[in-house]
């Protein structure tokens, strides 16, 4: 994925879920729901297809593995390039949001171009 291609919402949310700390698959699903305030509910198929792509892009890596109740639990972490890509996306979205807010304010105060 190119650095200039906008991130799709699930990708953005998965990277955000991993930004502060490594998480396992189920933890990411729950966190994405929390971050999006219940608006986005990812399923396992989407999550693992995304993780496969993000790993191959070098944005996400395996942090560690644990066995819990006889099942493998793999923790994923955001890599430096992944963090840089997320930061760039946040910067871009913030700039767009600022611009949109200003325009809306101008509209409310009756300004015209």
């Amino acid at each position, binding site marked *: 994925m190119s650095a200039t291609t906008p991130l799709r919402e699930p990708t953005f949310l998965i990277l955000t879920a991993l930004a502060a700390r490594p998480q396992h698959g189920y933890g990411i699903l729950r966190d994405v729901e929390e971050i999006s305030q219940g608006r986005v509910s990812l399923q*396992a*198929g989407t999550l693992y297809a995304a993780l*496969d*792509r993000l790993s191959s892009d070098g944005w996400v890596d395996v942090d560690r593995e644990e066995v819990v109740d006889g*099942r493998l639990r793999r923790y994923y972490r955001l890599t430096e390039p992944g963090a840089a890509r997320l930061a760039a996306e946040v910067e871009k979205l913030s700039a767009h949001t600022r611009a949109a807010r200003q325009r809306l304010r101008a509209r409310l105060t009756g300004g015209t171009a």
Partner: protein
Amino acid sequence: MNERHYRKLLAWYPRDHRERHEDEMLGVLLAGSGPSGKETVDLLRGALRLHLRRMVGMDGGIDHRDVLAIVSLLGPIVMLAGAATVLDRLVAGSSVWRLSTAILEFPGAPVWAIWGVVAVLSLFRKRRAAAVGAWLGTPAFLAAAVLGYPLFWDSVVVTTGWMLLGVLVAVALTWSPGPARGWELVGGRRIVVLVAAVGTSVVLVMKSLGTYGVLFHPMDITTAQHGPVRMTLWALALAVLATGVVVAGGARTREGRRAALVLSVPVVVSLLMLVLPSNANLLVATAVCTAVPLVALLGSGSLPRRIRLG
């Protein structure tokens, strides 16, 4: 019960993904609220996406250094299949006088000799020396065409497949871990298989003498000109070569399959030439025979699409 249901769905995932993630995904799915139609569709869509990504090599999960390492080892051997046309003449001219005449007649002969040396150097894992030979051997096709043939473009078109594979082998020998790594990946036994396949292919082409000079003609014209026996021998030669590179490259690994695709370039070009119309412009024929395999190799992820510097 749920576990069986999920295992059935996960069976649709690519093998390498299953081996790495099945247990982990099962844990995530069983921790959820239970199977639902939405979840089933999502899992199947995920499986399809991963298969597609692997098919067109978009997932980056291919180690191109390993693909090229296999090409660096096996490529020079495959190149020798192209020497069949010259070998045929050399065998016919058994006396020294006739041999020298044959070389004058076929200026391509020294080029194939260079590739013979490259193949030996590669087998002895002398990467640098083999790379130098490959970089000399590829433009030598052009030089032979300029010096030796009245119909320059004719000869360029005929050797397109070999020149293209020659460049790829030279690149592989220069920028990959080289034949030593290739040997680790394929092993000695598969090299023997490839040598046997190339040898058989050469003999078959020699037996089908006359077909290889008339390459860019539709099948019906070619068959009419050369007869079904010669054309069958020629087709067999291609089939044996293609089978040899798939077996030797390693059909079980993604890197092996990609390497086999690279090594099949001369086969693909030969087939392309067969379907090109007989009145095709030679420049266009060369461009088509170069572009189609390159696009196929890039599309299938056999060659890296990005070059990383540093």
